[in-house]
Structures are given as C-alpha cells and as structure tokens.
C-alpha cells in the first residue's frame, strides 16, 4: 500500500512588507536629497510684490560666508557659466529657470559676477526673495 505524501505549501511572508516599503522610501529620499541645497545657510532679502516662482532647472546660492553654490555644491563665479550651460543644455526659453538665492548682506562684488554668469549661460533668472511685511495700520 502506498501512503500519499503530505504536500508542503510554501508561501511568501507578507508580514514584513511595510518595513521593506519604509526602508525603500528612506533610500529614495536620501538619493533625492543629493541635489538639495538646504544645508547652505542664507537669509533672503525682502521685497514688495514678489511672485510665486516656477520650478527651477538649477539653483545658485550665495551663503552667509559669501561663497557661491550650484545645486548645493561649492563653486566659483568663473566656473558657474560652464556648469550652468551643461545643466540647462538645449532646453527651450521659458524652461531654463535658474533660482538665485542671495544672502541679504551680500554686496555687488559678490552677486554681480554670479548674475553675469547666469546671463552668459542663457538662464532665466529668478531672484528668490521674501515678501515684505505689510506696514502696521496707523
């Protein structure tokens, strides 16, 4: 007489799916922050009637130490035009937005060469500013 062998069922454990998704999310968040410039310290100048800015192709920052950064990486105004041209490529006009974040205490000797470099690369310059507080009522 032949005894039937009991069939073993192999199932994938779904219990850890939440943990796997969580770890994957952290991995992608860290990758995405590689181009982040949030570590650069700067304070925006204030101006009346500022507009909402469109999404940029690149972001140039002059920090509290008056150093220049392109997408969070330190650079010099002399190298900026070439690096920006490479990022902007052949993008059509209107899609070549470059954010310029200048620390409010910066002087013309710091920011003018940077503006000239953005202009040389053909970027659509957007100064990032803070809206001025409305005057208190009298």
């Amino acid at each position, binding site marked *: 007489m032949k005894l039937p062998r009991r069939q073993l069922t192999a199932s994938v454990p779904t*219990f850890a799916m939440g943990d796997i998704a969580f770890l994957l*999310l952290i991995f992608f968040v860290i990758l995405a922050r590689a181009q982040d410039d949030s570590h650069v310290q700067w304070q925006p*100048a204030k*101006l009346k*009637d500022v507009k909402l*800015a469109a999404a940029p192709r690149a972001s140039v920052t002059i920090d509290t130490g008056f150093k220049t950064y392109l997408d969070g990486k330190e650079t010099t105004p002399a190298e900026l035009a070439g690096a920006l041209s490479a990022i902007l490529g052949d993008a059509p006009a209107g899609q070549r937005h470059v954010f310029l974040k200048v*620390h409010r205490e910066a*002087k013309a000797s710091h920011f*003018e060469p940077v503006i000239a470099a*953005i202009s040389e690369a053909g970027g659509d310059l957007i100064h990032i500013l803070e809206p001025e507080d409305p005057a208190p009522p009298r």
Partner: protein
Amino acid sequence: MKLKRGKMLIDPPDCATADIAFTLIIFFLVCAAVQPETGMPQVLPKTEAKTEKQDQSRNIEVSITPSSIVLNGSPLQLPEFAQRITEALRQKTREADRIVVVKSAPDTPYPTWIGVSQAIDRAGGILTLELETERRIEVE
C-alpha cells in the same frame, strides 16, 4: 464565596506599526514639499564684451552706491528714482532705447540693488549690468 476573575492582558497589535510609520512619513514629505518659493523674475540680455561705444551714449545710466542712486547725474532715493525712471522710459518706444545700464559700487548691498532692479523692471526698462573687468599687466 466570590471567585476572582483572572485579568486578561490586551496588547495592541504591533504588525501595523510599520504601515503607520510609512503613512506618517509620506504625510510629512508631502507637507515639506508644498512650500512654494517666491521671487522676482529678471530678464537679462546675454553677457557679451562691449565693443560698441556709440549706442551706449543713448542709454539711460544708473549708478548705485550704498547711500544713493544716481540717474543721469542726479542723486536720488528709491521712491524718487522709481518715478524718474518711469518718466524717462515713457517716451522710449524702441526696445533698444529701453536699455538701462546699471553700474554698482562694489559695496552696494543686495536689498538696494534688487529695489532698483524692480523699479527699472516696472518702468519697462531692460536692465543691463556694466561690470568692470580686471586686467593684470606685468611690468618688468
């Protein structure tokens, strides 16, 4: 005689903790990503070395120093400058005539510069920077 009922231990289920954390992180990521940035767009002519002197004499010239704004030789403060530049550009119809050449002292603060830039933009002018280039000559 009263019999004591045994207490039942109720633990919250742990298996959903990771899912809750995942949902929370998505919530905070979305909250962080929707902060819009505000600013001022600026149209700049492409940078080039100046060769023609003739056309430059026709353009409006503005000099900025930390204490004043000089328009065609007269020192002004920002509100007065905004009025004067609007009047000066009102008569100009050709785009080439609306070019405003801005020269800044090296110690001009950014808030002053951006205020002047906004006034020129609102008046319909095209801002052009005049930068001084350094040239080193070695003398033997």
